[in-house]
Structure formats: structure tokens, C-alpha cells
């Protein structure tokens, strides 16, 4: 029974009860009591529904508050993580920069002695074969004396750039001293090393810089020594140094292999 039918029935009952001709009827009193009882129950039911609705609304609101709170806290958490990650990334970059600074020559950005020493010890420890090259710029002191150190520095930077262009991923080139460079060529035999060094010498001699409208270029002398199994790296280094000295003595601008 829908609400309108229900209402119509109640009205019919009320009309019957209101009719004075029915007042003495035996059903009058029970019907009147039943109608009253019905109305009370209807009111109760409406109150109940109303209370239930309010509860539902409260629960809904509480859920929305909790949801908003959760979303806010999530957003905050995400912001915290994002910023914190940013600081960590900054720290990593700073560490990388510090590591680069502590292992590279600030002028040429080639490996410094510390990194070269580290790599030599690694090679020795791993038993990997390698060839070591010492190189020296010919008559560099004269350039420094004539044109000044800033020109000498510019030349060193240009030469370092040229060297990087020739080297393979596994090669390590370092600045060993003022105008002296060292090459560590892992897994490289002497003949291959010689080819690399000659190519590198070609490139370096093609480098020119201008100072007071004068074009400056230099040549490179080199001494090559292949590491022998069981040999201390200082010994290999000493042989390369002797070969370099020999290259210098015999007229510069050349590459000599250490005599063993």
C-alpha cells in the first residue's frame, strides 16, 4: 500500500467515525482505538526514519572529514618525501662533485695522481694486463717562459681535450706532473698501445692556440712499457720513464718502447 492509499484509507476511517449515525455501532470503539494506535505507530516510524537519516548523515560527514584528513596527510607526506628526495639528490651531486675534484686535475680535468695510483693498484690486484705510457710535451718550458703561464695553461687544456678525443672508454689518461701525462691502457698489448700513442701524438701536434697573433703548437715525446705478470707497477713505471727519457735524448717528438 502506497502512502496515498494509506492516507485515503485513514481519511475514510476518520469520516466513518465522525458520522454520528455510527456512534452506537459495536465496531465503533475498537475501530477508533485501532485508528489511534495506527497513527501513533506511523508517527513512531517517521521519527525512527528521521533519526536514522540523521545518523547516516553524521556517518557520511565523519567519513568525508576522515577522507579529507587522509588526503591532506597524504599530500603532506608526499610533499615531505619530494623535498627530502630533493635534498638527497643535492647531496649526491655535491658528493659527486667533491669526488671529481679529489680525483681530477682542476685545470685539464684529467685524472690526477691519486686516481692514477688507485687504478694502478686495482690493475695490479686484479691481475689484468695493461700497458703504461708516460708522455711529455716537448719544450713546454720555453712556451711558458716566452708567453706566460696563462698561455701555457691554455695549451695544456687544449692538449687534454685532444687526448680525450682519441682515448677509449677503458683508457685512463692523467696529468702526472706539470707537462707530463700518463696513460693506462688496460688489456692492451704493446703494438696496439703504440698505434694509440701515435694517433694521440698526431692529434696533439695538430693542436694550435694563438698568442699575440702567433700560432703555437707542440709535439709530444712518449715512453711505452707493458706490464709483465708479477711485476710491481713501480717497475713498469720506471721502464716507461726510461723509454721517455731515451725518446727525449734521441731528438724528441717520438715514441719509444722500453727496452727490456
Amino acid at each position: 500500500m502506497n502512502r496515498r492509499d494509506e492516507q485515503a484509507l485513514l481519511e475514510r476511517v476518520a469520516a466513518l467515525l465522525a458520522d454520528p449515525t455510527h456512534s452506537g455501532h459495536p465496531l465503533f470503539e475498537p475501530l477508533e482505538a485501532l485508528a489511534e494506535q495506527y497513527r501513533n505507530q506511523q508517527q513512531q516510524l517517521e521519527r525512527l526514519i528521521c533519526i536514522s537519516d540523521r545518523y547516516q548523515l553524521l556517518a557520511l560527514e565523519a567519513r568525508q572529514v576522515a577522507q579529507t584528513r587522509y588526503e591532506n596527510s597524504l599530500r603532506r607526506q608526499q610533499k615531505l618525501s619530494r623535498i627530502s628526495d630533493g635534498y638527497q639528490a643535492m647531496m649526491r651531486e655535491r658528493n659527486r662533485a667533491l669526488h671529481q675534484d679529489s680525483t681530477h686535475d682542476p685545470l685539464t680535468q684529467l685524472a690526477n695522481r691519486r686516481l692514477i695510483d688507485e687504478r694502478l693498484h686495482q690493475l695490479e690486484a686484479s691481475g689484468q694486463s695493461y700497458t703504461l705510457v708516460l708522455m711529455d710535451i716537448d719544450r713546454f718550458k720555453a712556451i711558458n717562459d716566452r708567453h706566460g703561464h696563462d698561455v701555457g695553461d691554455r695549451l695544456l687544456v687544449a692538449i687534454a681535450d685532444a687526448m680525450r678525443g682519441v682515448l677509449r672508454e677503458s683508457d685512463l689518461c692523467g696529468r702526472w706532473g706539470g707537462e707530463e701525462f700518463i696513460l693506462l691502457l688496460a688489456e692492451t698489448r704493446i703494438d696496439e698501445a703504440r698505434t694509440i700513442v701515435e694517433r694521440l701524438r698526431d692529434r696533439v701536434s695538430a693542436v694550435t692556440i694563438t698568442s699575440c697573433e702567433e700560432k703555437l703548437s707542440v709535439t709530444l715525446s712518449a715512453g711505452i712499457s707493458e706490464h709483465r705478470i708479477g711485476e710491481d707497477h713501480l717497475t713498469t713505471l720506471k721502464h716507461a720513464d726510461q723509454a721517455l727519457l731515451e725518446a727525449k735524448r734521441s731528438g724528441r717528438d717520438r715514441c719509444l718502447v722500453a727496452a727490456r
Partner: protein
Amino acid sequence: MGTMITMTRDLDIPRSQSTPAIQSSWQTGRLTMQGDSYPENSYELFDQVIEWVRRFLDDEERPLLLSLGLVYLNTSSVKAMMDIFDLLEEAHGNGREVAVEWYYDPRNERIAELADEFREDCSYPFAITPATTPA
């Protein structure tokens, strides 16, 4: 009212390797923090800062200025700064005049980017400025 009270309320924490220099001035309504922050116990350090900010905002009606030269912050320090900025946001919402000035070393642009991330939810004046002298 007491110069004495004002004196005891102010913070003057010297900079250490892992904590920033922190100074507060109740009189001028200014809080400054400078340096790195990765303390072992950041709650111990920041609780007093948060407390100072809260009390200044509650007890006074004058403007509050935060002058920051923070460099590196660990996670709990980031959280503490977010809490402080939230306090300022709440006060600003109640009509209070508050502002942040964050100075950074122009050689480290990343700091400015991170300060900008902090600024995201702040509706009060929040300036991120390259410092003329490194922080």
C-alpha cells in the same frame, strides 16, 4: 612587562656542523636560521623553535618575519620546517602579518628550487632571494 621575560624567551643557538644557527628576537618579531640541518635529534632542536613561533603568534599581535639561510636539510628537519610554515599559514589565515625571506647561495640553484617546493602551499609573502654573501 619584562625585559626579563623577553630575554628568557629568545633563542640563540650557535651553528654547529650538523645544526643551523638559530636566533630569535621577540622584540623585533624576527626568527633567523642559517646553515645545514641534520641533527641527531631534530625534535629536540626544532621543538623549541616551533614553541617560540607558536608563543609569539599567540601572545603578540605584531608581524613575524622568518629570515632563512638554510642549506642542507634532512627529512626530519624538512618536516619541522613544514610545521613552522603551517603555523604561519594558519596565523596568516587569521589576518596576521607574517613573511618568509629565504636567502640562498646563487651558486646552488637547487636550494632555490627546494625553497620553492616549501612555498607551494603558503599564501603569505615568501621571498626566495639569491644572497650577496654566501649563506
